[in-house]
């Protein structure tokens, strides 16, 4: 298994655990009187699961298993895969911080961090499509 695939899959596993822990916190909030910031974690829970776990796992496995890009670069351009990894995780982590913070603070900083998170994740998605498209091919 290539290093980048291991990185994607292990990071995805961390998000998988984190998502389910966040899911427990969201459900436990009214029962245990947890602070209001936990209420802002609902969309974070879903995106940790679907972006952090599912999409990142797919990205890692596709990088490994899809038909080769070329003889010289069988898995495409490594710099692009590293960039996708960095953008996706930076964007998702920014969301994890900014989205609940916005529910308890009026500071515009959180809104702009959320917008930055949107931009980083969007760039990661477009980068992944550009990276994988040429590898979706016949023999």
């Amino acid at each position, binding site marked *: 298994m290539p290093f980048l695939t291991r990185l994607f899959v292990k990071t995805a596993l961390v998000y998988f655990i984190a998502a389910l822990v966040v899911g427990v916190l969201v459900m436990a909030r009214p029962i245990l009187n947890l602070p209001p910031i936990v209420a802002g974690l609902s969309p974070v829970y879903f995106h940790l699961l679907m972006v952090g776990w599912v999409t990142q796992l797919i990205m890692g496995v596709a990088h490994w298993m899809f038909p080769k890009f070329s003889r010289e670069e069988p898995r495409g351009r490594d710099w692009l895969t590293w960039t996708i990894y960095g953008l996706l995780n930076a964007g998702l982590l920014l969301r994890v911080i900014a989205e609940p913070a916005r529910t308890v603070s009026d500071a515009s900083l959180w809104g702009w961090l959320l917008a930055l998170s949107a931009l980083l994740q969007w760039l990661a998605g477009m980068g992944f*499509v550009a990276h994988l498209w040429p590898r979706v091919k*016949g023999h």
Partner: protein
Amino acid sequence: MTRPSLWFLRSALIHLALGFTFGGLLLWNKGVPIHPLLWRLLPAHMEFLLLGWTVQLAMGVAYWILPRFYTQRGDVRPVWLAFVLLNGGVWLAGMGATLAAPAWVILAGRLCEAGAAAAFAFNAWPRVKPMALAASHRE
């Protein structure tokens, strides 16, 4: 990679690009408001990423890698039907809800998606088998 898989996977990547774009706009709009109407992209964002991207990717990869009958992957017609129904369903249900279309449009979309699942299972079901069966089929 087989021809139906190429179509499923390319369509999945297109839905990923669209779904991430809608999601990026929604998240940016949440942090730094652009226009309230952007919230209407939410059903399309969910439909495109859950069914158009994740489910369609799984179908494309499954058709490609499930055990074959010697060199054959079974009757390809239900698989093409599944492709058409799934993509038609995703657009009817996703864009229907986003554009506030009548409820029957969204219902038609969901029916198409259910039909896609049935058509796909019709091809995949007999291919979920032990390796020994593949060998005996060859003889």
